[in-house]
């Protein structure tokens, strides 16, 4: 079964949770007991409609404040696909959650309130989805019922958004506009009678037709070694298997490979998926690889195909998203986790801060606050093997860990 992960973004009160609730309701994914709970609570609150946002706002604090404060995951499926929605909050101060939700998604829904149009938040949401190179973005112009399903308003919002699109860095992103009313159900799952001027697909129709081949970013095969399997049993006495997940492209038995950082060459002998030997390891599969030669490979090393080497360097520049309340200052040291590899990194230089509302950059800064996005150069204690993020979403990204708190404090996308 195909699994599609979708990130949602919108400002407070744009109706994001309601939209998700609506999708669940119209696809009959809400179970009787969940629906009963929603009916009961809606009634208690004196609403004359069903408050679908109650289906997703999980934590007590959220129910009290009536807002979403963290990433929640919602699951539903159709006969064609399984869907995971990462519901991320829209507050200015929660850029970090949006980056997090987007990092594992292949598609994104940006919500716009038809009464308000494109606002600063919209710019920010689009910027982040573009920065993270989400392949497919749906711009859902919501609350159309409150503007009398006006085609004129829809077109003017669309035109404003298209102006933003001209500024984006990742031009190949596929963007679709849909007029919806999440509360009333127009063009979410079912076509609306209220928008005769709109001939496009409904939101769900659009998601259903997305082809897996088109929505994943692919690149060259990279195999970071997670774990070395040495059974030391009679039957598998000399077995040394390198366990890991294949990223970017596929690897085949017989492929000539280089192990990094030692740069020793060998050939792929066997590819195991559990107890089955396979000819090919396709991208994103968790396999165990054995090599023809006995070479020294351990966790954090990487197998790549000969002639297809990544950059091997102790210094690089990246766009980072800062996620910690404690500032990042030039000269600070962090643990940098690149895939499964960990090194020490020092902030050499903060080049500039990027305003994620497309309003330009700020120079001459030596410190970053939570939710800042900036271009930074790092120096490492030993080389890592990386690609530019634009060529390889997995091998071009990393996280920063604070050595004192052990918390994940930032995410980076290598230039």
């Amino acid at each position, binding site marked *: 079964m195909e*699994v599609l992960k979708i990130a949602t973004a919108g400002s407070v009160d744009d109706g994001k949770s309601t939209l998700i609730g609506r999708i669940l309701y119209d696809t009959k994914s809400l*179970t*009787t*007991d969940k629906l009963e709970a929603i009916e009961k*609570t809606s009634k208690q609150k004196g609403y004359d409609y069903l408050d679908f946002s109650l289906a*997703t*706002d*999980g*934590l*007590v604090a959220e*129910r009290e404040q009536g807002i979403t404060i*963290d990433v*929640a*995951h*919602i*699951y539903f*499926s159709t006969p064609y696909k399984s869907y995971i929605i990462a519901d991320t909050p829209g507050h200015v101060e929660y850029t*970090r*959650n949006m980056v*997090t939700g987007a990092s*594992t998604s292949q598609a994104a829904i940006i919500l716009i309130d038809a009464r308000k149009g494109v606002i600063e938040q919209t710019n920010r949401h689009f910027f982040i989805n573009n920065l993270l190179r989400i392949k497919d973005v749906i711009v859902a112009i919501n609350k159309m019922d409150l503007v009398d399903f006006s085609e004129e308003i829809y077109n003017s919002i669309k035109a404003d958004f298209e102006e933003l699109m001209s500024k984006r860095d990742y031009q190949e992103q596929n963007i679709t506009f849909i007029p919806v009313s999440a509360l009333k159900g127009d063009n979410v799952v079912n076509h609306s009678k209220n928008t005769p001027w709109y001939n496009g697909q409904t939101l769900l129709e659009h998601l259903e037709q997305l082809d897996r081949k088109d929505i994943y970013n692919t690149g060259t095969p990279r195999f970071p070694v*997670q774990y070395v*399997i*040495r*059974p030391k049993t009679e*039957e*598998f006495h000399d077995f040394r*298997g390198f*366990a*890991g*997940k294949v990223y970017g492209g*596929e690897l085949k038995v017989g492929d000539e490979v280089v192990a990094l950082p030692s740069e020793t060459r060998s050939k792929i002998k066997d590819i*195991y998926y*559990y*107890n*089955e030997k*396979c*000819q*090919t*390891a*396709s991208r*994103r*599969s*968790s396999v*165990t690889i054995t090599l023809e030669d006995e070479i020294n490979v351990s*966790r954090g090393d990487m197998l790549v195909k000969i002639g297809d080497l990544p950059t091997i360097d102790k210094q690089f520049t990246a766009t980072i998203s800062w996620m910690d309340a404690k500032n990042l200052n030039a000269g600070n040291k962090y*643990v940098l*986790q690149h*895939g*499964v590899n960990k090194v020490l990194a020092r902030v050499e230089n903060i080049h500039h801060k990027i305003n994620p509302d497309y309003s330009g950059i700020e120079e001459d800064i030596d410190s970053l606050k939570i939710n800042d996005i900036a271009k930074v150069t790092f120096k490492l204690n030993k080389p890592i093997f990386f690609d530019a993020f634009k060529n390889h*979403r*997995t091998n071009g*990204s*990393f*996280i920063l*860990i604070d050595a004192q708190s*052990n*918390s*994940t404090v930032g*995410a980076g996308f290598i230039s």
Partner: protein
Amino acid sequence: MKDTSHINPLENEAIYIMREVAAQFEKPVLLFSGGKDSITLVRLAQKAFYPAKIPFPLMHIDTGHNFPETIEFRDRLVEELGLELIVRNVQESIDQGKVKEETGRYSSRNALQTTTLLDAIEEFKFDACIGGARRDEEKARAKERIFSVRDDFGQWDEKNQRPELFDMLNGQIELGQNVRVFPISNWTELDVWSYIEKEDIEIPSIYFAHKRKIFLRDGLIWSHSDFVYQEDHEEVLEETVRFRTVGDMSCTAAVLSEASDIASVVQEIRESSISERGARIDDKRSEAAMEKRKQQGYF
């Protein structure tokens, strides 16, 4: 010739997570309840480390009120796979006066497991506990991370969780802390059942239709047993039932069902309209029931 492209992306993710646990932690343990989710975890762990053995033990926190079928199954599985099993008993925590047995109509030992679990984590110095919780089960679990840090009191700080980006799992912790790991976070109930069918995994017999002595309360089917409080007017009936979820006898309700093999169970789940946790009596207590138990260190 074979390739791996047909394999379920959820399985690939879970195997990746299992391997991260073995690589990043010194003393991991797999929390095993004998239920379908933890049985699925054992199969995933087998796959992750083949041809080597699973490099960590299983641990069962036994409430003493389990279905006997589950315990028999547990012991057989462990023996067949040659795994190490640790069992810690809630009864001991009660005898030591650390927790007090609940009494009355809705009494259950389910919540008492937390103390026994936290004591066992401390006793064995486990730094990672793998569990079968899924985000689709319940609203508070929908916000749970794959690597979820617990402080040295075993508590979950849901407002201060580490962001998880791409595939990268940050397992760095301080001494005394531990990480709860959820490899099947992104699986739904139907995903688990379909996987059990596809992989032909054996599960305890109580998941299939069988005749059982039951009684009805609050629209739910309760097991008639010494472990379950029952009032005189609550009449004992015999019905053909099965369990969708298996926990302590005092907190697991049955459903009427004729599904006697895995294919008909999968079919039933596909068509069913009551979510799995709707059959968990402990969650009906209040809307925030699960979140409160999680903050205290419950699984």
